[in-house]
C-alpha cells in the first residue's frame, strides 16, 4: 500500500499549462528525487502538494484514502485546508525562517500556537460545562479541578515541544545556536534550522525544494548530509534537486520531469544508468554528475 498517491495532477496559470497530468506513488520510508530542467514544473508540483497552489485538477491519496480532489474540494475552509496541509512539510530554497525569533522559537512557534489554541478550546468547553451545571452541587469544584488540569496539561505540552525542538536541533547539529537569531547563522545553518522546523510538525511526507540551491558550494555538503541522515523506514521524503550525485545515492525513486510531464520514472540506476527516454539522456548529459 502506497503512503502517497498522486493522480492526474494538473495545474495551469491563466492558460499556461505547467503540470500536464502527474501520476506517481510513494511508499513509506522512500525517498523520491525529482530532477528536471528549469521551468519544468518541479516547484509547482511541490507547491500543489503543500496546497500553496490550487491544482486545476488531480487527486491526492494518503494511505489509499482520498484526502484531496481538486474538482470537488473547491471551497475548502481554511481549517480544512490546514488539516490536509499538515500531512506534508516543505523546506524552501530560500529557507523562509522567521527573522525575529531565535533558533529555538523558530521551531516551537507553530507547535506552541496549536497547543494554545487547543487549550483555549478546552477551557471554553469547561466554562460551558460549568455554566450548564451551575446549580448542581460540586460543580465549582469540578470546574476548578478541570482548569488546573488544563493548565498543567498546557505546561507539559510546552515542555515536550521544547524537548523535541532540542532533540531536532541536536540532529541537525545546531545545539550551540539555540539562542541565536537567523541573521547570525550561515546559509547552511539556516537551511538545517528550516529542516528542523519542518520536522517538528512530524509531517508524513517532507518535501524539499532545491534545499541547497541558495547555498555556497562549500555549504551544500552539510545540508545534504543532514537530509541523508533523515532517511529511515519511517520518514518519507520528496526532494527536488539539481544534485545528481546526491539523487543517485540517496533516492529510492527518481522522477525526471520535462515540460510538465513525468518523462521518466524509476530507480536511480534505471534513470541514471539506463534511461529509456532520449530527452532524459540529453538532460543528464548536460548535468554534471
Amino acid at each position, binding site marked *: 500500500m502506497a503512503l502517497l498517491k498522486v493522480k492526474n495532477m494538473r495545474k495551469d496559470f491563466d492558460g499556461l499549462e505547467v503540470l500536464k497530468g502527474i501520476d506517481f506513488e510513494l511508499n513509506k520510508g522512500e525517498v523520491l528525487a525529482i530532477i528536471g530542467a528549469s521551468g519544468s514544473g518541479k516547484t509547482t508540483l511541490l507547491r500543489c502538494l*503543500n*496546497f*500553496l497552489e490550487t491544482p486545476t485538477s488531480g487527486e491526492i491519496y494518503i494511505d489509499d484514502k482520498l484526502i484531496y480532489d481538486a474538482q470537488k474540494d473547491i471551497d475548502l475552509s*481554511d*481549517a480544512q485546508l*490546514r488539516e490536509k*496541509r*499538515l500531512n*506534508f*512539510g*516543505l523546506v*524552501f530554497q*530560500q529557507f*523562509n*525562517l*522567521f*527573522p*525575529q525569533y531565535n533558533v529555538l522559537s523558530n521551531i516551537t*512557534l*507553530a507547535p506552541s*500556537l*496549536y497547543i494554545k489554541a487547543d487549550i483555549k478550546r478546552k477551557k471554553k468547553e469547561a466554562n460551558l460545562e460549568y455554566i450548564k451545571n451551575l446549580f448542581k452541587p460540586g460543580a465549582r469544584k469540578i470546574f476548578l479541578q478541570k482548569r488546573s488540569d488544563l493548565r498543567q496539561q498546557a505546561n507539559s505540552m510546552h515542555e515536550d515541544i521544547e524537548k523535541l525542538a532540542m532533540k531536532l536541533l541536536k540532529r541537525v547539529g545546531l545545539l550551540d545556536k539555540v539562542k541565536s*537569531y*537567523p*541573521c547570525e547563522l550561515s546559509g547552511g545553518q539556516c537551511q538545517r534550522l528550516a529542516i528542523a*522546523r*519542518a520536522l517538528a*510538525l512530524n509531517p508524513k511526507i517532507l518535501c524539499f525544494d532545491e534545499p541547497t540551491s541558495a547555498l555556497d558550494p562549500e555549504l551544500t555538503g552539510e545540508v545534504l548530509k543532514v537530509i541523508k541522515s533523515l532517511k529511515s523506514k519511517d520518514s518519507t521524503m520528496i526532494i527536488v534537486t539539481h544534485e545528481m550525485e546526491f539523487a543517485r545515492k540517496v533516492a529510492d525513486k527518481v522522477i525526471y520531469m520535462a515540460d510538465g510531464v513525468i518523462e521518466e520514472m524509476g530507480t536511480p540506476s534505471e534513470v541514471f544508468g539506463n534511461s529509456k527516454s532520449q530527452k532524459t539522456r540529453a538532460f543528464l548529459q548536460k548535468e554534471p554528475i
Partner: protein
Amino acid sequence: MDFGQIMLSLAQGFATTCLLFILTLIMSLPLGLIIAFCSMSKIKPIRWLSRTIVWIVRGSPLMLQIIIVFYVPGLVFNYPMESRMFAVTVAFVINYACYFSEIYRGGIESIPKGQYEAGKVLGMTSTQIFFKVVLLQVIKRIMPPVSNEVITLVKDTSLARIISVGELIKSSQDMMKATASILPLFYSGIFYLAFNGILTLLFNYIEKKLNYYQG
C-alpha cells in the same frame, strides 16, 4: 506682563497642542491600519474607494481640510459645528490616518511572500501569521517613516489656529500682541523643539530595541 504670565499662557496653548497631538495619534494609528487593509482588499470597490479617499486626503492641504470639516456641516447641512477642537481633531485624524495607511501598506507589502508561505506550510492560520510572523517585522520596517510623520504632526498642530483653536502658536501670537514683542514666538519654538527632542529620543530607543535582529 511678566515672564511668568507669558509662560503660563504659552503652557496653556501647549496643553491644547499636546491634546490635539495625542488624540490624533490614538485614533489615526489604528484607523490607518483599517484603511490600509481596505486599500489592499481583494474586493475591488472597497480597494478603489479607499485608495481614492487616500489620494484626495493626501493630495490636498490639511489647512483646507480643517476649514472644510469646520464650515461645511454648517453651510451645507445647516448643522454648525459646536466645537472647534472637535472639528480640528476630526480633520487631523482623517489626514494622518491616510498617511499612516500608506506607510502600513508599504510595510506590509514589503514582507516577502515566503514568510506567509512558511507560516502556511507550518499550519498557521492567517490571523496567527499576521500577528505572530508579519506584524513585528512590519513595525520594525515602518518605524523610521512613522517617526517622521509623528514629528511632522507635532508641528502641523499649529494649523489648528486657522479656525481659532488656542494652540501654542496662537497663544504666542496673542502674547506678542499683549507684550508688543516678538519674544513669545521664540519661546514657543523652544516648546516644539523640546517636545520633538523627547519624541526623537523615544523613537531612537524603540528602533534600537527592534534592532535585536536583522532582516
